């Protein structure tokens, strides 16, 4: 594709996203921020992030694209909310201690045998702080550096949350197997 054609595609894609989802994005942002001005700021900042990562967008109407946008606008809104509340901006997240109370080592087959439904259920109940990052990494194919940029976190925090999220899932899946679920 010629450079000129690619630019036009990016521009038209960006415009189409704006015309298709801006009001919906506002609704997501407002549900968190409860303030018109801040919600618009959140939407605008999210579009800035989308603009930088426009190559991650394929189909406008796909679940993949829409879930990507929801994760971005939600996290941007939470970030704005914290700034407004003057909560601590921790650039390097505290690394949480992982309890070393694992009772056994399940066979590899245990994990493979877990139904997608079971894993999906665990993901639903997981703190979005971890679930969103795991999704950006393993579903949207974002690298740690990209996730850090999108969610305005340090790379160490992103990596830490991926690590913690996977450990939590593994523990929950093993715990379910141990109790005959």
């Amino acid at each position, binding site marked *: 594709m010629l450079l000129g054609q690619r630019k036009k595609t990016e521009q038209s894609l960006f415009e189409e996203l704006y015309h298709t989802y801006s009001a919906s994005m506002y609704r997501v942002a407002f549900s968190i921020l409860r303030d018109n001005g801040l919600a618009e700021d959140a939407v*605008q900042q999210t579009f800035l992030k989308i603009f930088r990562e426009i190559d991650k967008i394929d189909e406008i109407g796909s679940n993949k694209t829409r879930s990507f946008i929801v994760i971005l606008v939600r996290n941007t809104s939470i970030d704005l909310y914290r700034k407004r509340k003057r909560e601590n901006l921790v650039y390097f997240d505290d690394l949480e201690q992982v309890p070393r109370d694992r009772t056994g080592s399940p066979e590899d087959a245990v994990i493979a045998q877990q139904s997608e439904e079971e894993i999906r259920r665990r993901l639903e109940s997981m703190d979005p702080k971890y679930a969103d990052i795991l999704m950006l990494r393993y579903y949207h194919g974002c690298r740690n550096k990209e996730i850090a940029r999108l969610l305005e976190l340090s790379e160490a925090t992103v990596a830490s949350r991926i690590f913690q999220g996977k450990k939590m899932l593994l523990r929950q899946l093993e715990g379910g197997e141990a109790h005959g679920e």
Partner: protein
Amino acid sequence: MANDFRREDLLEECLKPAFEARAEQLAAELPSDDLLEDPHTFSPEFQAKMAAMTRKAARGRRPLRRYVQAAAMFVLCFAALGFGAMQVEAIRTPILRFVVSVTQEYTNITFDGGSNKELPASYEEIAPGYIPEGYELREQDLSEWHCYASYENPATEGYFSYMVMSTGGSSTSFDTEDCRVYEANINGRKAYVSVKLTRNTVIIVMFDQDFTYTLAGDLSEEEALAVMESVP
């Protein structure tokens, strides 16, 4: 140890299809605007900002790095040709200035100047020579300006990250709340060490003219310092 990594690899494979369902759930939170009953009317200020952003999209994204590199090369060439009498040492030793600002919650270091040098092509050239017993390299990601690596200890579930980035024009912030923080000199490089008083976690930020090295993890202070002392 290898089994723990293998189990994680299996989990990652299972996560992919599970996320399809989650994507559907999240997508439901974002219907297209034409389906909304009472869509928000954006302010004139918002519409003006978005119009500007759309015009920028029309110009296309320019890789900023290439422009910075091109500009840097132009300046260097111009300086070499137009200022022949300039001392070569003045070009070879750019002055690194840094400003440290401390709040109750975090410390920020902003750099100005520095060499803007690219990272080496292989991770081994910047990797620490000493890694505490039981820890293994889990992943590493290297580009011209930025490197990230993570190490894990499957037996203890310990973890630490190691980052290297080009110092010039960058800034770094790190947690200092409820921490013991002090300056150090590690093999001629200036460093800030932040030890969390309530947990066994350490952050060390170390820098020179070229690069900023950052370690963060649940190592003891002694181990963390030993790792940073072994950085080439």
